[in-house]
């Protein structure tokens, strides 16, 4: 390092003061602003600067909204201005800014001139970093919610299937036995009616269980689960699903299978709700080391540039998030009058692929 002269150093410091992106304030013992650099002036409200310069009110408090401590997001307890001895080498402070309201800044505050009690407060804009963090947190939270929901659905589905439906089935069998006992005509008729209701109830419970989470997805894999789901869709809504699977009964990790199943379910439901068509094409295949799902309809389509959700708008977002859970790629293409196509591509590694015979 080249030895620097004092003049040179003070010149550099001056330049730093003038050109730095960090806002620098010099504050005295009473909390009054002694000086601030251009970056700092850019932040503050013009009125506040005016008052500071004219000396009407030069306290820093009129722009500071508080800082983040262990207890609160924004707090004024043990203000850093009053406790210069406290550890304020790095903290987060909220300032009232010129155009953007209250904005968080990363701050450091320390004494630089003991004699005159001058301290320096340096600020760095945190909004961008905080937004990134928020997005990260939201996406993590969503993934957690998706997982929790899936687990809970699985639990309730099993419960319905294994205990409620089983109990009901054995009552139904008992009832059928009674029919062959020596009972009167009117009793027999009543029994038959009860059998009808119970049979329908049993079907409803089974449907509910499958709707929550099909056991066939865990036991038999994607293809079987899709076939029964599409049959159900056809019966319920009259929508025809043209399904072609080229997987030859291959199995994948349960996480991947769940993601593919749910995304497909959502895409088909979207077509049913908004496409105004009664036929949907679904193709499931393995190509070039990745699992691919295509859901296509030739219905109404929509303008992808217009951000106007017909439904909750959460569906597409959720599909994307689910795809990310397994490092999948989610693509959507649609245009008015051209129908909609949803594509999902999940890269396969040895870990997440399992053959049917290993089970």
């Amino acid at each position: 390092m080249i030895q620097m002269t004092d003049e040179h150093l003070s010149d550099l410091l001056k330049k730093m003061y003038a050109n730095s992106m960090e806002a620098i304030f010099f504050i005295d013992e009473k909390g009054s602003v002694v000086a601030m650099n251009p970056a700092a002036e850019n932040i503050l409200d013009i009125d506040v600067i005016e008052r500071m310069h004219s000396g009407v009110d030069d306290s820093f408090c009129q722009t500071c909204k508080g800082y983040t401590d262990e207890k609160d997001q924004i707090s004024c307890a043990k203000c850093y201005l009053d406790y210069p001895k406290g550890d304020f080498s790095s903290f987060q402070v909220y300032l009232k800014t010129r155009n953007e309201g209250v904005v968080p800044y990363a701050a450091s505050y320390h004494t630089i001139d003991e004699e005159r009690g001058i301290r320096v407060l340096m600020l760095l804009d945190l909004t961008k970093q905080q937004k990134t963090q928020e997005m990260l947190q939201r996406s993590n939270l969503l993934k957690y919610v998706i997982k929790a929901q899936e687990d809970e659905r699985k639990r309730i589905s099993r419960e319905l299937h294994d205990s409620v439906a089983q109990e009901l089935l054995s009552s139904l069998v008992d009832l059928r036995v009674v029919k062959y006992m020596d009972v009167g005509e009117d009793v027999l008729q009543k029994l038959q009616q009860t059998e009808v209701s119970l049979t329908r109830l049993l079907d409803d419970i089974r449907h509910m269980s499958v709707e929550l989470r099909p056991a066939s997805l865990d036991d038999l894999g994607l293809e079987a689960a899709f076939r029964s789901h599409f049959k159900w869709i056809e019966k319920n809504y009259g929508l025809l699903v043209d399904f072609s699977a080229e997987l030859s009964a291959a199995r994948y990790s349960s996480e991947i299978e769940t993601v593919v199943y749910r995304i497909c379910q959502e895409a088909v439901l979207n077509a049913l709700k908004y496409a105004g068509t009664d036929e949907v094409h679904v193709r499931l295949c393995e190509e070039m080391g990745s699992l691919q799902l295509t859901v296509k309809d030739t219905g109404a389509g929509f303008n992808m540039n217009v951000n106007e959700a017909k439904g909750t708008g959460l569906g597409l977002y959720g599909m994307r998030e689910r795809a990310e859970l397994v490092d999948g790629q989610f693509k959507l293409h649609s245009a008015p009058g051209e129908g909609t196509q949803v594509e999902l591509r999940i890269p396969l590694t040895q870990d997440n692929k399992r053959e049917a015979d290993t089970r």
Partner: protein
Amino acid sequence: MKNQPIYHYQEEIDKLRGRFQFDFVSMALVQPAEDRFVLTWQYASGNINERYKRIVLHSGKGIAGMVFKTGKPMLIQNVNADIESRDLFNYPIIVAEQLKSLGAIPLWEDSRVKGVLLVGYRNENRLDQAAFERFQEGLGAEFGAFHAREVTQS
């Protein structure tokens, strides 16, 4: 139910459609035990496609499902106003047949709902309360082998 005359329901609902100038009439019936007693549309008149044949009705869902479950007639005077477009997919028969104004009544047998008769128009507000009541009166107490109204068994 012995010596019961055989009813030709297709003819009956065609006649109904002509008599009241409906755009669409359909009839759902509970199926026998082999089909696990499901409720499906068996006859339709004025249909624009065959989608209705694929639909299996669920008790409590959709207009016919509601009528089946409650045993009460139901009227949707204006589909566009009474059903949120977001929910419309839960009413497949309305979507498939593009109905805009419709009503449905239960068909009784042995004080059980055994079927649903649905009538409707493809224009809004064609079937209002008064017209729906006129239809029910005009239909009378019986439709084929069924009671159009609840009869309490003695």
